[in-house]
C-alpha cells in the first residue's frame, strides 16, 4: 500500500493545481500581468513533481545531471530568443 | 587612435579593423610559426621509436594559464573598442539636422523616399558632408542594405525598421558617370533570383546641385 502513496500524492497535487489555475483565470481576481506569471510558476511546480517522481529522479539521482543540463540549455534558448525582442 | 569620428564611418571602421588585425597577426604568427617550427626542431631522430606514455599529467600548467590571461586581456580590449565603435554607429542624428530617407528593399531593387515625398528606385542622391539617416525595411523577403564603400550596412526585414546613418565627403577616389563621387549600393542577403543584381548607386553632390535635384520632379 505504501508504494501507492507517492503516486497518489503527486496526482492529488497536480489535479488540485490544475483546478486552481482554472479558477484563477475564471475569476480574474488579479490583473493578467500578475496572473500569468503565477499560473506559469504553478505549472513549473507541477512539472517539478512529475520530473522528480514520474521521471524517477527521486529514485535514481544521477539522472538529475541530464535533467538540469536539458533545462539549462532549453532555458538558454528561450531566454536568448525572447531577449532579442526588446529594442 | 580615436575610434569614434563624426564624419567618416569608414575611417572609424578601419581603425577598429586594424586593431584586430594587429592582434591577429601577432597571435597567428606565434601559433602557426610554432606549428611549423616545432616539428622541425623536435623531429624524431630514430631512437625514440618505442611508444612512451606517462601516467602523470604532463606539463607545466603555468603556460596555459598565461596564454588564457593574455587572451582575456586582448579580447577585453577588442570588445571594448568594438562597443565604442558600435555606439558611434548607433548614435544617429535626428531628422532636423539630417536628411531622413526611407529605404525599402524589394525583389530586386531599392526604393528611396525623401522627406518631401520624392520617390526614386535604385538611385540615392545626397549632399556632401551632410548627415543622412536611412530607415531601412523590406517589402517582401529578408534583404540586407549596404554601402560598403562607406562601411555601413543593415538588414532589411519585413515589419522591422533598422536605422543607419552616414555623412559622405565631397572628395573621393571613385567618380562615377554623374561626375560626382559615387558609391555602390548592394544587397547582402540571398533574396532570390535577382540577388546579384539588386544594386544601386549613391551619388554625393555639392549642395547647389543637390538642392536643384531635390526640388525637381525627375529621378
Amino acid at each position, binding site marked *: 500500500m505504501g508504494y501507492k502513496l507517492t503516486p497518489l500524492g503527486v496526482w492529488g497535487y497536480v489535479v488540485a493545481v490544475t483546478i486552481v489555475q482554472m479558477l484563477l483565470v475564471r475569476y480574474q481576481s488579479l490583473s493578467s500581468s500578475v496572473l500569468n506569471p503565477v499560473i506559469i510558476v504553478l505549472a513549473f511546480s507541477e512539472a517539478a513533481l512529475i520530473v522528480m517522481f514520474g521521471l524517477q529522479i527521486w529514485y535514481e539521482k544521477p539522472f538529475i545531471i541530464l535533467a538540469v543540463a536539458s533545462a539549462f540549455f532549453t532555458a538558454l534558448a528561450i531566454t536568448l530568443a525572447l531577449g532579442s525582442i526588446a529594442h | 587612435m580615436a575610434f569614434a569620428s563624426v564624419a567618416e564611418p569608414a575611417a572609424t571602421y578601419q581603425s577598429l*579593423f586594424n586593431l584586430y588585425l594587429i592582434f591577429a597577426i601577432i597571435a597567428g604568427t606565434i601559433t602557426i610559426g610554432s606549428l611549423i617550427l616545432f616539428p622541425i626542431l623536435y623531429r624524431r631522430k630514430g631512437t625514440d*621509436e618505442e611508444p612512451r606514455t606517462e601516467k602523470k599529467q604532463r606539463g607545466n600548467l603555468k603556460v596555459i594559464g598565461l596564454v588564457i590571461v593574455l587572451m582575456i586581456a586582448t579580447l577585453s580590449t577588442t570588445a571594448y573598442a568594438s562597443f565604442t565603435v558600435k555606439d558611434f554607429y548607433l548614435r544617429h542624428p535626428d531628422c532636423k539636422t539630417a536628411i531622413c530617407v526611407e529605404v525599402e528593399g524589394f525583389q530586386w531593387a531599392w526604393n528611396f523616399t525623401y522627406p518631401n515625398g520624392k520617390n526614386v528606385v535604385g538611385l540615392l542622391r545626397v549632399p556632401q558632408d551632410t548627415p543622412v539617416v536611412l530607415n531601412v525595411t523590406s517589402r517582401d523577403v529578408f534583404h540586407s542594405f549596404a554601402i560598403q564603400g562607406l562601411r555601413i*550596412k543593415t538588414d532589411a526585414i519585413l515589419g522591422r525598421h533598422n536605422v543607419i546613418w552616414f555623412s559622405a565627403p565631397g572628395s573621393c577616389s571613385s567618380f562615377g558617370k554623374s561626375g560626382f563621387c559615387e558609391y555602390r549600393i548592394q544587397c547582402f542577403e540571398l533574396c532570390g533570383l535577382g540577388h546579384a543584381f539588386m544594386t544601386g548607386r549613391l551619388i554625393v553632390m555639392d549642395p547647389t546641385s543637390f538642392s536643384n535635384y531635390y526640388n525637381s520632379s525627375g529621378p
Partner: protein
Amino acid sequence: MVKTWLKRWLYTTDHKDVGILYFVTSFYFAFLAALLALFMRTQLAIPNNKFLAAAEYNQAVTMHGLLMVFWFLSPLGIAFANYFIPPQIGAKDLAFPRLNALSYWLYAFGGLVAFIGFFSPGGAANAGWTNYSPLTSIQFSPNAGETLAAAGLIIVSASVTVGTINILTTILFHRAPGMTFMKMPMFTWFIFFTMLQMLWAFPSLLAGLIMLESDRILGTLFFTSVAGGSILWDNVFWFFGHPEVYVVLLPAIGAVMEIFQVFTNRTLYAKKIAVAAGFAIVTISFMIYGHHMFLTGINVTEQEVFTINTEAVSVPFGALMVIFIATMYRSAVKLATPMLFALGSLAIFVVGGLTGVFNSSLALDIAQRGTFFVVGHFHYVMVGASLFGLFGATYYWWPKMTGKMLSESLGKLHFIVSIIGFNLIFFPMFFLMDMPRRIVTYTADTGWGPLNLIASIGSYIFIFGHLIFLSNLVRSYSRGPPAGPNPWHGTTLEWTSWKGGGPSPMGVGASSIGRPILSSLSADPHNVKSSHGSIGPEIAHQHWSSRPIQLSLGLSIALAGLGFGFPIFVLGLVLLTWALVGWASDDLHDKFMVPDEPPGDRWPFQTTTKLKLGMWAFISSEFTFFGVLLGSYAFVRYNFSYWPPPGSIHNIPVAGVNTIILLTSGLTMLLAVQSIKTGAIKHVRTLLGSTLALGVVFMIIKGSEWYDLLTGSPPFTPQTGLPGSTFFVITGIHGAHVIAGLVALVYLLVRTRNGWTPGKRATVEHFGLYWAFVDMVWVFVFPLLYLV
C-alpha cells in the same frame, strides 16, 4: 554470393560495418557537393560569366552547403566514431546495434530525399543552407525542392537523435572495467562532446523545420507573419546552427589529438585541461549564435553579450592550441601523412579561428556580414580544420579498417596539393570584403575579377588533390601492402588489444582492462592482420536485421511525400507501419540477439539500466524540442499586439477536464511502475490497460475539441492566424506523442500477455518515463495555450 554480400550490407548492425557504410556514403555526398562547388567557382572565375544561370547557381550554393555540412563532414566523423569508439573503450559494439543501422539508413535516404530536389520541377532548394524566412515560404519558394530539402533535414534530425542516444549510452555504459572517464582516449572524449552538442542542438532545428513545413504545406504563419517571422527563424535556426559547426569540428580535433600523441610519441600535454576545454566549448557554443544576427536590429545589450560570449569561446580553443604545441615540445615528431594533415588542420584552424574573432565584433560585422570575408572564415574552419583533420584520421585509421597501408608518397602529395589549392581558394576571400555572398555573378568594374580567378584556379588544384586521395584509397584497397595490427605504434585500445588476445601492457596503463575484445571475432583467422576480415555466418546471423532499412525507407518516402504529394506520403506511411510492426514482432519472438556487455565502468550511472539511460537521453532531446516549440509560441505572442483573451476561443472547462484525464493516466502509469518495482505485479496489466483507456479518452476529447474549432463559426484553423497556427501545431505534436505512447502501450500489453520476465518488467519502467514526460509537456501546454 551477391545475395550474401547484399544481405550483409543492407541488414548489418555491426558497428564496424555501419562505420564503413557511413565512410563510403559520406564521401559519395562529398563528391556531389564538391562538383557543385566546382560549378560555382567556374561561374565566378570571371565577371559576367554565363556558365550558370541565377536559378542554377542558387540551387548549387544551397545544396553545396547542406550536403557538405549534414551529409559529409559530420557523418564522416560519425563513421570513425562508429568504428573506433567500441574498441577504444573496450566494448564489443554500440549500445543499440539496430538503432545504429537505423541512424545510418535514415541519414542515407534523407540525403537522397534532399538531393532529389534537383530533379523536381522548380529545382532543388535554393534559399541558402540557412533557409532564411520568408524566402523559404511557399510564396517565395513555391518549388518542391525546398520542401524536400527540409524533409531531408527532418530525416537527418531523426538519424542524429537516434545516433546521439546510441553513442552517449555506449560511452556511459559500455566502458570496460577500469576504463574511467579520465582514462578514455581523446577521440572518444571529443565524440562525447559532439554528442552532447547534438543532443541539445538538433531538437531546435527539428522544431524549426516542422514549423517551416507546416507553413509550407498547412498554411500556418510561423515564419511568414510580421510578428516574428524572420527573426524567429533566425533564433531557432542559429541556436542549432552555431553548435552544429562545432559538431562538425570536434570529431576532427579529437582525431588530431590521437594522431598528435602517436606521431610525437608523447601523451597529450595537460589532458585534464583539454577535457575541461571541451566542456567549456560545449556550454559556451550554445550562447553565441547571435553573432549571425548582429544587423537584424536586435537590442544592443544582447548584441554585446553575444560579442563577449563569442570572444569567450576562443579561450578554450586557445588553450587547446597551447596543448597541441606543448605536446610537440621536446618530443619526437614523425612527419608521416596523418601528422602532416593534423598539423595542416591546426594551422588552418588558427587562421579560421582568428578571422572568427573579427566576425565576433558587433561593430566589424557591419562591414563583414554577408560578404566573402565570412565565406573565407567558415571554409577555413570547416574545410581546413575539420576536413584536413578527418583526412588525417583516414590516413591514420585506414590500416586498421582495411588491413592495408596507404601510400606515403601519394599521401604527402595529396597534402601538398591540398594545402596549396585550399589556400588559393579561400585566402583571397579575405580581401573580397566588398563582395556579397551567394551572388551568381558580378561586373568587371567592381575589380573582383582577379581574386576570384585565383580562387577558381585554386579550386581546380584542390579537386586534383582529392583525385590523388581517391586513387590512393582505391590502389591501397585493391593491392596495397598489408598492414600489421599496429603500424603506427599507437597506444589506444583499438591498436593494442584488437587481436583477440590478452590485455595491453601499455596505453591506458590499467591492467584491469583486459577482457578479450570482440570475443565473437576471435574465431576469425584474419583477425591478426585486419580487424575488418570476413564475418562468419554465425556472426552475420546474430548481427543483422532488415527492419532499420525498411523503417528508414518508409519514413523517407513518407516525408518525401510532403513534396511529391499525398499518395507518396501514404505509401511511405504504409511501409513505415509495416517496418514498425515487423520490428515489434521481431522483439516479440526474440529474433535479434546481441551478446550482453559484461558490467564495466559505469560511473555515474552504476545502478541504472542501459535502456533507461537511452530513454533518458531521448527525453532530454525531446525536452529541448518542446522547449523551443513553446518558446517560439512565447516569442510570437510577445511580438503580436493582439492575442485572443483566455476563454474567448477555447473551452477551458473541457480542456481542464481533459487535462485531469491525462494526469490520471499518468497516475495509473506511475502506479504500474511502482508496482513493478515493489514486485506487486498482479494488477500491472490492469493499470496499463487503464492508462491506455484514459489516453484514448484524452485523444477523443481532443479530437472533438479540434472538430468544434475547425467547424465553428467563425472557424478557428491553423491558417486563420498565429493563435490558430500555434494551437494546432503544438497540440498536434503533443497529440502525436500521445498516440505513439498509446501504440507502445498496446505493444506492451501484447508482449506481457504470457507472463513477466525481468526484461518485460523493465520495459514498463522505461515506458513510464516516456509517459511521465508526455504528461509533463501537457502541464505546460495547457496553461500556456488555454489560460494565459
